[in-house]
């Protein structure tokens, strides 16, 4: 009798700190989608969802890319995003895709000054190039979006762009069996919502990396620059041209906003000031990367300049004074006073930032 009592107490002692005395049967593998944390014995019915991680290779001289924790890069997500980027299904009349205003051959920008929406209405800004934007800390010329996911929400419903509703887009995509499969593979979801549509597009956009221009090959010691390109490089990186303060480092941008003296007040486009509602920000716009600049004509937020020569001429003339012009435009009204040859050298250097594989492969 006592011996049996001892046995029982031993048994109790063993389980004294366990929460459940009766073993629950279920999937005990934490990696499974139906993992049951209370299950003690495995019932052999674990279901697995697996994706292939997509690794971003950080180019020389670039910082780490900050990827949102709730949208990790996967091969499935990137491929899905690419398909969505190219699919007019996102627009109300199924006629306009992201790629139509962000042409690959233009480094994912629009060669037209203003893009035309599905209702034949034009915007007032030039569609930004999408190159190395995974390193941007804000998006759009005026910084109105803080992440690629947030940015992708906007064009779909903008009346002068795709002019659709997210409910309609969700309906169309959920009715498409191919997309049903692809979203299940990429995100393990049965109902496709707008959040996952923009997540996939953002994943694809983070892969639009350019780091194999002639300039990169020069930095790696694989190719020489011509004397004219080297002269332009020196002008760019000294206060003679003073391009590097905003377009410095291997990124060729500074993740900041500036008024570069394009216009006098009052400004027709307030830029950052429109978003921040701070008049000190009026006329300021995001610095674009100069990578692939040869392919992204026209230039400036409103596409006012067709050629790089016009852009250089703007800085060379010094630009216009206004109350928000950036102090870095220190030769305002005086100009850089470059000779014609120096201006040509600067343009030659800018063209070394062209990455042909980026727009063709």
């Amino acid at each position, binding site marked *: 009798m*006592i*011996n049996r*009592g*001892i046995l029982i*107490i*031993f048994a*109790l*002692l063993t389980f*004294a*700190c366990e929460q459940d005395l009766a073993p629950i049967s279920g999937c005990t593998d934490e990696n499974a989608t139906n993992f049951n944390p209370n299950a003690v014995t495995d019932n052999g019915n674990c279901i697995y969802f697996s994706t292939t991680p997509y690794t971003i290779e950080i180019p020389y*001289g*670039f*910082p*780490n890319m900050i990827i949102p924790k709730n949208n990790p890069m996967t091969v499935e997500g990137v491929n899905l995003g690419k398909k969505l980027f190219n699919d007019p299904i996102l627009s109300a009349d199924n006629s306009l895709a992201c790629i139509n205003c962000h042409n690959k051959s233009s480094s994912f920008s629009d060669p037209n000054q203003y893009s035309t929406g599905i209702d034949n209405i034009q915007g007032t800004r030039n569609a930004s190039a999408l190159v190395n934007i995974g390193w941007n800390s804000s998006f759009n010329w005026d910084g109105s979006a803080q992440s690629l996911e947030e940015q992708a929400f906007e064009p779909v419903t903008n009346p002068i762009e795709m002019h659709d509703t997210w409910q309609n887009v969700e309906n169309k995509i959920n009715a498409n069996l191919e997309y049903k499969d692809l979203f299940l593979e990429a995100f393990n979801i049965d109902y496709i919502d707008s959040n996952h549509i923009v997540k996939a597009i953002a994943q694809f956009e983070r892969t639009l990396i350019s780091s194999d221009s002639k300039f990169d090959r020069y930095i790696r010691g694989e190719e020489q620059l011509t004397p004219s390109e080297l002269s332009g*490089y*020196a002008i760019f*990186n*000294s*206060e003679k041209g*003073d391009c*590097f*303060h*905003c377009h*410095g*480092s291997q*990124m060729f*941008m*500074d*993740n*900041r906003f500036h008024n570069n003296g394009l216009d006098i007040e009052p400004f027709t486009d307030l830029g950052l000031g429109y978003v921040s509602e701070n008049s*000190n920000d009026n006329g300021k716009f995001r610095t674009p990367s100069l990578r692939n600049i040869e392919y992204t004509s026209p230039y400036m937020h409103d596409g006012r300049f067709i050629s790089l020569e016009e852009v250089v001429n703007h800085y060379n003339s010094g630009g216009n*004074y206004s109350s928000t012009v950036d*102090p*870095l*435009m*220190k*030769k*305002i*009204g*005086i100009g850089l006073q470059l000779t014609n040859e120096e201006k040509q050298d600067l343009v030659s250097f800018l063209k070394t930032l062209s990455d042909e594989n980026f727009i063709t492969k």
Partner: protein
Amino acid sequence: MNKYILIFLCISLLFSCTKKEGCTDPVAINFDINASLDDGSCDYNNFNINLHFTQSIESDALIRDSLKYLNHSNIHYSVQTLRYIISEIKLHKEDGTSKLIDSVQFINIADESTKKVTISDVSDLEYSSISFTVGLNDSYNVTNLFLNESFFPSFTWPEMLGGGYHYMQLEGEFQADLANGNPSFYNTHTGPTSGTDFSFNKTFPIELYVINNQTDIYIDMEITNWYKNPEIINYSSDGIMENSSLQSKLKENGENDVFSVYSSE
């Protein structure tokens, strides 16, 4: 015999899930010798040091974007941009030992969050001086060394001008006659011109007054003094990043009386 085992096991069962909670660290002032499970309540009587980076003109707090200031030769000027690096901030004791409290601090007057840094859990009151480097010294100032810091890429100092990063970007407008035309811009950018190390170290005595586990130390920059003591420097719209002679003068002025440190009682 078996009865005793039974009783012993019953008692074991009672205590098998109970441990006394409390502070288990003998160094803490509320160490509980009976506690076997730490409950996070340990109190070390430690304190926080709040390092404040302040900027003034003629001893008053800087007002940004205002052309109300007059320099040594009666030129109106404003400060629009002021961004700088203070590195290797250390506290020192009389016995020669020191504690590194912040290796690189980037201060941008447009961003309040960069103007204060808190060093928590300091346990020692015996610090008698503070030292820091204005800018980045040669061993730190290397191209691509700080790729993931907030001052990258905008503080980049081009490789062909010496490489690494700016120490300071101090920019604004200047104008002789406010009623006549538009102002001009000055860019006082300091850094490793031609690869020369123009950073400098400053050391100041301090006394730490701890109130409610907090102590405040202020590192102030008197902006005007960059331009006048002892070397007179006039505003110009010419860049100075390749001007070693001006960099040298700015360093001399900077070492002289641009910075001061005080702690609050």
